[in-house]
């Protein structure tokens, strides 16, 4: 009995937790305890899963004993278990943060009681997407997390949220329909939706059909991952949601799209047919995204644009289809989930403390709350890729892989990546200079909260107390925890890079995945990729 056979619990536990939390809808304290306990348990389980596949022990679980390729299969390999652990860690941090916010605000917004069940369903959908071993189950995972995200996005039903929610829902539904059409076509062409089986059968199709299926899947996932030019919806819809919701969306939802793109590129359609268009898309995503960020004055919108821009790095690593490039992309995904989420959480704190999230109205926060300044500064520098942080390491990995590849387009992407990194630094430095560094009197429309200098600030005790009421300890604590997790990615970058390189190697090799699902005697298709460029 292997620990990996408990993998479906990573989906089932949050769903059961959601049911329980729904029953406890009138007992907010018990509801909080249940959802935090369930997520902690899930996180523990996923750490055990990661440990069991650490050295390449890819495992598959057949739900209900139906043998593949007929039944539903869940596959745990290094990439999916790493994604599971990182996603659950940040979901837990955001849940604690949201709980702190809810307690501080006294749960006055009526639908807060619906937050916990919906949030757990979202986590279940994300886990399902990471674990699923067949395309249709991946679709179901996407739909679970999207439907939960529709509810979270429009929580409270205020005007701006409804307006943003409409865009979000329509775009997501269209991308889901595209995905479903692709699944139907894949099934029509091959007669199976099991991914391991598809890896073998798609190779027999003729070139035209295969390219059509490939492009359709990539477009469907590209909308979800917000790859330019399919990224327009993201900066319009994310910033209006409540702070914890934006944080978890920014960290997870686009990365699920990236995960699906990685699976499509490596498992289903190996080879470098579409690498050139993917690289061009990656370059445009990076540059256009960050130029958009520079035009923004609202921190949430600015961060949403940097989110789009940094998706470009992951697509870049993926499009190189070398072990070094894919490994760096896997590392970058793990890094970016953590950092982007913590930045959005800090923005929630800034909005609380400074009364606004617009850099035109904020000023002098470094003096008002040094802790907040520190919490913003570390992930911001990490995002921009300042050494020695993990953002720097991930970008160095990508740039090394790009130089190793050595094509003109790869060099263009390397240059684009460096420029994007510098512009990210410029964007976050603008926020830092305006919101934290300048005097409140220099702000154009300062918020009264900032100008009202506490007359007894030198006595310390009073100022300290007012700080606590403005920034609840649970919120600061969970943000601090996530920032520390981001820093620990730097400290443990060695093992993590080794793991992601191994994961990349296994994904490009494909034999471990296919044999885990279909059995040892499954025919392993010839390696369509050069594994050169590895270390």
């Amino acid at each position: 009995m292997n620990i990996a056979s408990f993998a479906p619990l990573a989906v089932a536990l949050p769903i059961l937790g959601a049911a329980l939390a729904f029953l406890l809808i009138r007992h907010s304290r018990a509801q909080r305890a249940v959802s935090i306990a369930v997520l902690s348990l899930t996180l523990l389980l996923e750490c055990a899963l990661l440990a069991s596949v650490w050295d390449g022990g890819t495992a598959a679980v057949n739900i209900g004993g139906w043998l593949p390729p007929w039944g539903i299969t869940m596959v745990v390999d290094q990439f999916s278990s790493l994604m599971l652990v990182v996603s659950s860690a940040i979901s837990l941090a955001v849940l604690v943060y949201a709980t702190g916010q809810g307690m501080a605000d006294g749960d006055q917004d009526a639908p807060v009681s619906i937050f916990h069940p919906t949030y757990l369903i979202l986590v279940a959908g994300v886990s399902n997407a990471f674990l699923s071993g067949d395309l249709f189950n991946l679709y179901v995972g996407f739909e679970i997390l999207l439907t939960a995200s529709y509810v979270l996005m429009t929580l409270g039903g205020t005007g701006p949220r409804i307006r943003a929610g409409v865009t979000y829902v329509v775009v997501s539904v269209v991308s889901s329909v595209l995905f479903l059409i692709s699944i139907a076509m894949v099934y029509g062409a091959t007669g199976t939706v099991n991914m391991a089986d598809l890896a073998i059968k798609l190779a027999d199709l003729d070139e035209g059909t295969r390219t059509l299926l490939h492009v359709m899947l990539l477009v469907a996932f590209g909308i979800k991952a917000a790859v330019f030019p399919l990224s327009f919806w993201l900066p319009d819809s994310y910033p209006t949601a409540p702070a914890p919701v934006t944080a978890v969306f920014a960290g997870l939802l686009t990365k699920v799209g990236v995960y699906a793109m990685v699976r499509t590129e490596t498992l289903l359609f190996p080879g470098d047919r579409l690498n050139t268009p993917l690289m061009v898309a990656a370059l445009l995503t990076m540059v256009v995204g960050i130029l958009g960020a520079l035009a923004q004055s609202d921190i949430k919108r600015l961060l949403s644009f940097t989110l789009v821009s940094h998706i470009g790095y992951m697509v870049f690593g993926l499009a190189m289809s070398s072990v070094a490039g894919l490994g760096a992309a896997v590392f970058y995904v793990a890094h970016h989930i953590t950092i982007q989420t913590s930045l959005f959480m800090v923005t929630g704190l800034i909005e609380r403390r400074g009364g606004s999230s617009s850099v035109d109205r904020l000023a002098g926060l470094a003096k008002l709350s040094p802790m907040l300044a520190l919490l913003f500064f570390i992930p911001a520098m990490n995002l921009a890729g300042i050494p020695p942080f993990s953002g720097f390491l991930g970008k160095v990995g990508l740039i090394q892989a790009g130089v190793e590849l050595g094509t003109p387009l790869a060099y263009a992407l390397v240059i684009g990546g460096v420029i994007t990194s510098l512009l990210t630094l410029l964007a976050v430095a603008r926020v830092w200079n305006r919101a934290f560094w300048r005097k409140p009197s220099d702000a154009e429309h300062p918020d009264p909260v900032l100008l009202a200098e506490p007359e007894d600030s030198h006595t310390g005790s009073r100022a300290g107390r007012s700080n606590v009421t403005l920034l609840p300890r649970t919120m600061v604590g969970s943000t601090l925890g996530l920032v520390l997790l981001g820093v620990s990615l730097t400290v443990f970058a060695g093992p993590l890079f080794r793991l992601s390189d191994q994961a990349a190697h296994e994904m490009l090799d494909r034999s471990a995945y296919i044999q885990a699902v279909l059995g040892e005697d499954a025919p392993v298709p010839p390696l369509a990729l050069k594994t050169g460029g590895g270390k």
Partner: protein
Amino acid sequence: MSVNLTLLIVMGALYACGIYLILERSLTRVLLGLMLLANATNLLILATGGHAGLAPLYNKDTGAQEYADPLPQALILTSIVISFAVTAFMLGIIYRTWVLARQDEIQDDIEDLRVAETPRFDAEDDAPIPAETSEFPLTMLGSDGSTVSDHATAADGPEAAGDSITAGVRKIPAADAAAEEQPGSQNVTPGPEGGVK
């Protein structure tokens, strides 16, 4: 594999109408479009299942070819349930939009509008530097007594001749544009990002 032509034509018509409808600005039409798209896709999945056959209940006397493929039907069932949930949610949102805004149209994003309206002219960056900004004007005289300038004077350039510059959609007299360099400008209320409100 034989394909039912009627189903195929219906599917095409549904896709065409669905795509037409989701391009509308009215939310109800968008919802109808999404429903048509979902149903067209269900027909597509049905078509991938091949010929119609017997229900897939095992019977010794029935040959394997006579059964219908059950998998597409299971997929369709799942996708119907999902599109049902999404439709219900969309209806809720549309009703809420109606309650809040009394209109059934997609509304523009406020921030997008703001960025779109920001003129390309930025008072801080783009105004021409007045010919003489030095605190020590006398030292800047050329040997022939004419003013040395790093900017076209009225005599030099045609654009400066009218003494006005184009700022986004409006014309600003050059003198006023120069005055905007100074804090407390009278004729420009700086919006966020330094543009004109």
